[in-house]
């Protein structure tokens, strides 16, 4: 679905490469969480996937990114927008209409969908994201978290095959963050949408993503199933990525010989494991 090969990118005027030699294959229906410290190249990687690089930001570009078999270098941003939807980090810049309803309608109208289809999708997505009550509100009166939900709804309404999200829960409280990731997981499972989410909250990624990509200084340090990547907890901490506490707990249980190397990535799993140990 998304194929990145030997990707290196240096922003115009920059001395250091923002991405160096990144290669990854994301299968259809995958749910990839991208994590890493600030300046690791996460947003740049996402920008290469949605075509903003090289179409908007210029620089030295080596390697290739293919979306559904098409090289992003040869497709326009418009062509890519038909396949991949992006939720940007700067939601204020992304929301270009005056009201919530207009914002969700914007992409649907651009895509020229029939009116009945637009109405159905509008209702559905507002309910799904939990912002039906904000429908007629002016965007300038919304809180940061509400704006973020509107941005997600506006992209989800387009039903893209690939969803690219840059810190979609950056301004959300823990409950809303979980709600957004639960929704992404459901869309991923039920509709087979491929999700790539840049996120700083490792616990959310461990619980909802199926694969984890860890970036540091423009390089892809680890990429694989969540459990496999989290096994490298010591290396991850050196990079600046803290592992979830449940991972530390299961590593400790393993070190003390109480478990046989089962890595827990969610609180529920950890609870079950601790119960098993206590029950002997």
């Amino acid at each position, binding site marked *: 679905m998304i194929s990145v090969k030997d990707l290196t990118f240096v922003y115009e005027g920059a001395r250091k490469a923002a991405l160096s030699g990144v290669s990854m294959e994301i299968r259809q229906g995958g749910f990839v969480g991208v994590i890493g410290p600030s300046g690791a190249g996460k947003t740049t990687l996402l920008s290469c996937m949605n075509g903003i690089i090289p179409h908007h930001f210029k620089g030295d570009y080596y390697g290739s990114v293919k979306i559904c078999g098409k090289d992003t270098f040869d497709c326009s941003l418009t062509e890519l927008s038909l396949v991949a939807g992006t939720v940007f980090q700067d939601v204020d*810049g*992304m929301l*270009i209409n005056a*009201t919530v309803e207009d914002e969700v309608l914007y992409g649907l109208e*651009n895509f020229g969908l029939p009116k009945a289809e637009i109405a159905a999708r509008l209702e559905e997505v507002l309910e799904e994201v939990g912002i039906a009550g904000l429908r007629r509100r002016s965007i300038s009166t919304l809180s940061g978290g509400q704006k973020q939900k509107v941005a997600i709804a506006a992209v989800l309404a387009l039903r893209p095959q690939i969803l690219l999200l840059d810190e979609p829960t950056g301004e959300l409280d823990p409950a809303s963050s979980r709600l957004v990731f639960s929704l992404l997981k459901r869309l991923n499972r039920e509709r087979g949408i491929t999700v790539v989410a840049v996120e700083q909250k490792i616990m959310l990624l461990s619980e909802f993503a199926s694969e984890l990509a860890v970036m540091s200084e423009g390089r892809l340090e680890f990429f694989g199933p969540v459990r496999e990547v989290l096994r490298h907890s010591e290396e991850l901490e050196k990079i600046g990525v803290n592992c979830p506490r449940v991972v530390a707990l299961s590593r400790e249980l393993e070190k003390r010989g109480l478990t046989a190397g089962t890595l827990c990535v969610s609180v529920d799993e950890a609870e079950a494991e601790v119960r098993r140990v206590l029950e002997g």
Partner: protein
Amino acid sequence: MKGLLEYTEGNTFIHRMNPLVKLLLALCVCAAAFASDSLAFLAALLAIDLALGAAGGVFGKALRLLAGLLKAGLLLFVLQLLFFREGRPLFLFVTDEGALTAAKLALRFIAACMPLALMLGLTRTGDLTNALVKTAHVPYKYAFTLSAAIRFIPLFMSEMEGVMEAQASRGVDFDGGPLKKIRLALPLCVPLLMISVRKIDGSAVAAEARGFNLRGRASGYKDYPLGTADLPAAALCAALVALGIIT
């Protein structure tokens, strides 16, 4: 002036009017103000502006708008008094013709600005854009530019406030007269411009990533048929312009 140009939700007959008729009405009041040379007619236009605001359920907002415009109008009035030298001297440098012309200029300025601002407060920008594209056949790119410019006004104002608050938190004292405020705000123009350009750039990319270039004339979701209030409003437009030219 904060929030004065933003859309106010409502269900009055003005809210329900066709966006293009509202735009036409605003432009006609504006044109009538420029065409007229009568102080009484200009004052009547101002009353019409306030009446339209009241009919749209935004009388308070219209009054605040008027108060804001009065300040600018007063500046125009004083400048005109200073430089208009024809007519009979009344006192100091003020002449009778100068006072009359200055009053007309200030009133004309207020009467012409108010309807446009009120129209923006009573029309969703999305509706205005779509109606311009669908009915008036304005190319989408131009209509979008207009709506984006309107949308960005409150955003820039809040950015300006943000920059000023950041400066105030580091000891800059913004309290004081308008001259002091202007002197302190001038150095903020560059960071504000930088932020604005970056935001506009981000918005352009976001628009393109949601199919901006696919938009056609028939793409709009809503239709904008003429309603019962639209024909009388169109007649009012014609009458105002005619009266403006006569007076």
